[in-house]
């Protein structure tokens, strides 16, 4: 019963992901593409929840649905002539795109077919965020503080690049 509900949710989410991903690359209006990209990100967060990875799901929502989307919105809004009747908003490289995607698909299918999927004997963590928090603040405390330094480096370099106007 429970697993059938889970697989139903999985298929619904997958359908949303694939459908909105196709819309992202086919819609004419770039802003609408972005909105469907957000839907894709959000549904992927749902997949993470199904995989018991609540922390990853939260990160997905915060960083992808939140931050990356905001960055993309600003990137779109700052592009010159985005709404120009002169500019043709069509994909002019359909055939190379299809070839690349086809090669990627075939390679992935071959790899998936040749992999022996081993299932771990260990039970999944019921509260992954506790495990992550514990190890982040005890075993991996140095990398944890280094993250802060990395973030500040990103911040300062972004400011320096952006202010060079």
């Amino acid at each position: 019963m429970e697993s059938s509900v889970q697989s139903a949710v999985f298929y619904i989410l997958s359908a949303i992901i694939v459908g909105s991903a196709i819309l992202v690359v086919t819609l004419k209006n770039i802003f609408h593409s972005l909105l469907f990209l957000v839907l894709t990100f959000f549904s992927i967060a749902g997949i993470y929840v199904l995989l018991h990875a609540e922390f990853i799901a939260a990160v997905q929502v915060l960083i992808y649905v939140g931050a990356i989307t905001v960055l993309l919105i600003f990137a779109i809004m700052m592009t010159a002539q985005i709404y120009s009747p002169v500019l043709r908003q069509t994909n002019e490289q359909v055939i190379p795109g299809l070839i690349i995607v086809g090669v990627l698909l075939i390679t992935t299918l071959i790899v998936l077919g040749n992999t022996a999927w081993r299932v771990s004997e260990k039970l999944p963590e019921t509260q992954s965020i506790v495990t992550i928090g514990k190890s982040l603040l005890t075993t991996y405390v140095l990398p944890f503080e280094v993250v802060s330094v990395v973030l500040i480096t990103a911040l300062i370099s972004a400011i320096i690049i952006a202010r060079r106007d």
Partner: protein
Amino acid sequence: MPQDYAYPGLFLLVGIIFVLFVFFLARLASPKKPNPEKERNYECGEVPFGFAWVQYNVRYYIFCLIFVIFDVEVVFLFPWAVVYKSLGFFAFIEMLIFLAILIFGLVYVWKKGALKWVR
């Protein structure tokens, strides 16, 4: 546990259906007499001019980048907050260092004048 998400899922579903239902009701109940004045975009009561799709000022991007940095920082606050009670003072000091480094960044940005809106 994924089962715990049945409740938020239900909320999501009810939310979507509710919005669609309200739109449907509005369509049923409202009279339709469009005129150009009514169909014009709403810009706080002013007469709109030009397209909404103009090129925005690059200055917004700096705020956006700063937001992204602190958004990533918030991600690390979650696991910390969950285990804070069991780890106690040590965890508090660690997070203090983590935040202090980033607050230093914010102070740098502030002093640099990047938060100021230059015309």
